[in-house]
């Protein structure tokens, strides 16, 4: 019998007051009973719209039907037939804008908790798996992947499954890209990322860390070394600043730096040498998921007051609703319709305050969002000792500047078609390196499509 409860089975969470003081995962995930109960809410539609909403076309109703039967391992196999990183996607995908937004149950109530179920299945498998994945039969072709974030890992895994000899090059000392340096532990435990990567290395994927393509070697040299195709999934790593006075004062960070110190370099753990300042009052400028991550990290690092300073209103916040709510529950203060004008320093060059101006929303702009307009004379200051700039990132210029004939846009994004083909023969690209900063799942979709295109390219050579 279908479970006709209009509401989702709630996912247990850590209490906001407690979790704001630790880095453990906020969302605790379903128990087996909860998962079965929630799975029974799925109507198993003949024409599953949810699947169309998924960038990697997870066979959603099929896996949920298996969860409802209690056959979690089969559910896992169904998911991983199209999605190589389910434990990650179950946690960080914006399901409310994708699969869950298409769910029929969402019309008269809440959609099926697809994300929570995906996460449950992936976690069940992680804790119950017995066998080691068997190595696919090699087809003798070599492919290089640049960057070990979601796009690169998905591309590498998809190709390895087909028998390709895949080597992934990573500039940092750890694989995972934004999954390890950007997204905090409390949203995506690093153990899970490492396990998903282990799963890929078990498929035969080789990972070379400390390898900076564009510096340690060029794309052309990869071809000279015998790779038949190259996938560039180097992400959008270059942080943008506002170009307002005071941005080089002591205590101003890019969100990238602040998050990397905490997540990759583990500044929150005593046994690590990474230095970090313990600020009292922090303003995070920006309204996306990265801004929420930075603000919530700041709170956990012991800041008394953490402000999100964003120039538009609540409805325009680009962050996921869930992240905004989690941030609010944890005591982050939202200073909306406020735009920073300058950062003020003391006589020693340390941040002492941020000056903002109030904004009001005018006519919609090119993005369809209402354009914020300054209210003249409404300047005011907030006393802070740190400012974290989280207004977006651009693709890293290193590969562009060292690869002849690789076409890029004026913003530095690599030009690639819908399957990832670039202006260079045999060079494919996808993820943020092509689109500019976007989501994990879109990067995975690009990696997956490019893998199929690389497979076709090599087979037709």
């Amino acid at each position, binding site marked *: 019998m279908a479970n006709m409860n209009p509401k989702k089975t709630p996912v247990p969470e850590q209490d906001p007051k407690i979790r704001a003081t630790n880095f453990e995962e906020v969302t605790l995930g379903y128990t087996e009973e909860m998962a079965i109960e929630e799975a029974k809410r799925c109507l198993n539609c003949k024409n599953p719209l949810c699947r169309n909403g998924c960038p990697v076309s997870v066979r959603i109703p099929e896996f949920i039907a298996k969860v409802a039967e209690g056959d979690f391992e089969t559910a896992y196999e169904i998911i991983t037939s199209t999605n190589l990183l389910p434990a990650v996607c179950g946690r960080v995908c914006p399901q409310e804008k994708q699969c869950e937004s298409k769910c029929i149950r969402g019309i008269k109530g809440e959609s099926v908790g697809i994300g929570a179920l995906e996460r449950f299945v992936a976690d069940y498998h992680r804790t119950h798996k017995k066998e080691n994945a068997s190595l696919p039969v090699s087809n003798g072709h070599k492919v290089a992947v640049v960057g070990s974030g979601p796009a690169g890992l998905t591309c590498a895994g998809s190709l390895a499954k087909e028998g390709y000899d895949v080597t992934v090059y990573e500039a940092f000392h750890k694989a995972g890209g934004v999954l390890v340096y950007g997204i905090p532990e409390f949203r995506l435990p690093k153990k899970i990322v490492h396990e998903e990567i282990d799963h890929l290395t078990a498929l035969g994927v080789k990972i070379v860390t400390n*390898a900076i393509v564009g510096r*340690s070697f060029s794309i052309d040299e990869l071809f000279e070394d015998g790779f038949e195709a190259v996938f560039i999934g180097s992400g959008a790593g270059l942080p943008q600043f506002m170009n307002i006075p005071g941005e080089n004062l*002591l205590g101003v960070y890019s969100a*990238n730096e602040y998050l990397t110190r905490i997540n990759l370099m583990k500044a929150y753990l005593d046994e690590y*040498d990474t230095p*970090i300042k313990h600020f009292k009052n922090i303003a995070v400028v920006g309204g996306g998921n990265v801004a929420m991550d930075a603000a919530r990290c700041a709170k956990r690092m012991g800041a008394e007051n953490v402000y999100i300073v964003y120039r538009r209103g609540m409805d325009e916040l680009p962050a996921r609703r869930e992240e905004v709510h989690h941030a609010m529950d944890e005591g982050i203060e939202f200073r909306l319709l406020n735009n920073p004008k300058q950062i003020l320093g003391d006589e020693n060059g340390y941040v002492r305050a941020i000056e903002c101006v109030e904004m009001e929303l005018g006519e919609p702009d090119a993005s369809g969002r209402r354009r914020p307009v300054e209210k003249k004379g409404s300047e005011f200051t907030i006393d802070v000792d740190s400012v974290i700039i989280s207004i977006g990132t651009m693709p890293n210029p*290193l590969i562009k500047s060292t690869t002849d004939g690789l076409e890029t846009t004026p913003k530095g994004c690599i030009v690639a078609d819908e399957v990832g083909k670039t202006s260079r023969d045999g060079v494919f690209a996808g993820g943020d390196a092509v689109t500019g900063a976007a989501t994990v799942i879109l990067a995975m979709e690009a990696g997956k499509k490019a893998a199929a295109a690389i497979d076709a390219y090599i087979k037709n050579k």
Partner: protein
Amino acid sequence: MYQIVSKRFLNEAQNTIEMVVKAPLVAKKCLAGQFIIFRVDEYGERVPLTIADYDREKETVTIMFQPVGNSTKMLAELNVGDYIMDFAGPLGKPSETKGFKRVAVVGGGVGCAIAYPVAKAIHQTGAEVDIIAGFRNREIVMLEDEMRASCTNLYITTDDGSYGEKGFTTNKLEALIQSGVQYDEVVAIGPAPMMKFVCAVTKPYGIKTIVSLNPIMIDGTGMCGGCRVSVGGKTKFACVDGPEFDGHEVDWDELIKRNGFYKTEEKNHTCRMTGGVRHG
């Protein structure tokens, strides 16, 4: 993992160390002026060090450093045969070494470790190179033979006059310029205050002055923005736009302040070698 193939002290005071490290990916491509980032072990920081030398055949890279911070002290504890966990590079843009007739390369203290390969690279193009190497005293003089072999004239200065000429590198540089030596370019590498003063000396003469900056950074690929410096009123990332810049355009006071940002944390850090909090 990157094995240490040789290690020696570079001066009498034994406070500056040369390590040759097996790092094929770095050794294959690196050029003078570029840097690496090392991480001693799982718990270590990522620390940038400029490449002092390399051997493409032996696949080795030479670094020279003073154990002053936690990470360089940890590195100094390692010996031949030990492994450094991470050693990434080459990073940054290589030095401009071509097209000069006569260049003065000014090195200050351990900065000579970087000044030396730059001087050598310029000298190899056939240009005349004067190296002015400054040290506090005789005990810390290093690389004298190597530098002498890589330049036209080597001038050593010490603050206390215990070796070479008494005085600062800036005194010697100014004296040479005033004596009529025509430099196309001056390269200054050393502590930020020294580079600042070298720039002050050359500015009135309009001699282009290149400096190599080593600010706080994490990734070295343009991703964190921690290494930002103001050059000509614009924010630049030392890791990808540098590390070398036109010294007359650098906002030195800002750079010196930014480099001191973590001094307190460093001081109160619980040392993993001694287990205690080390002050000073």
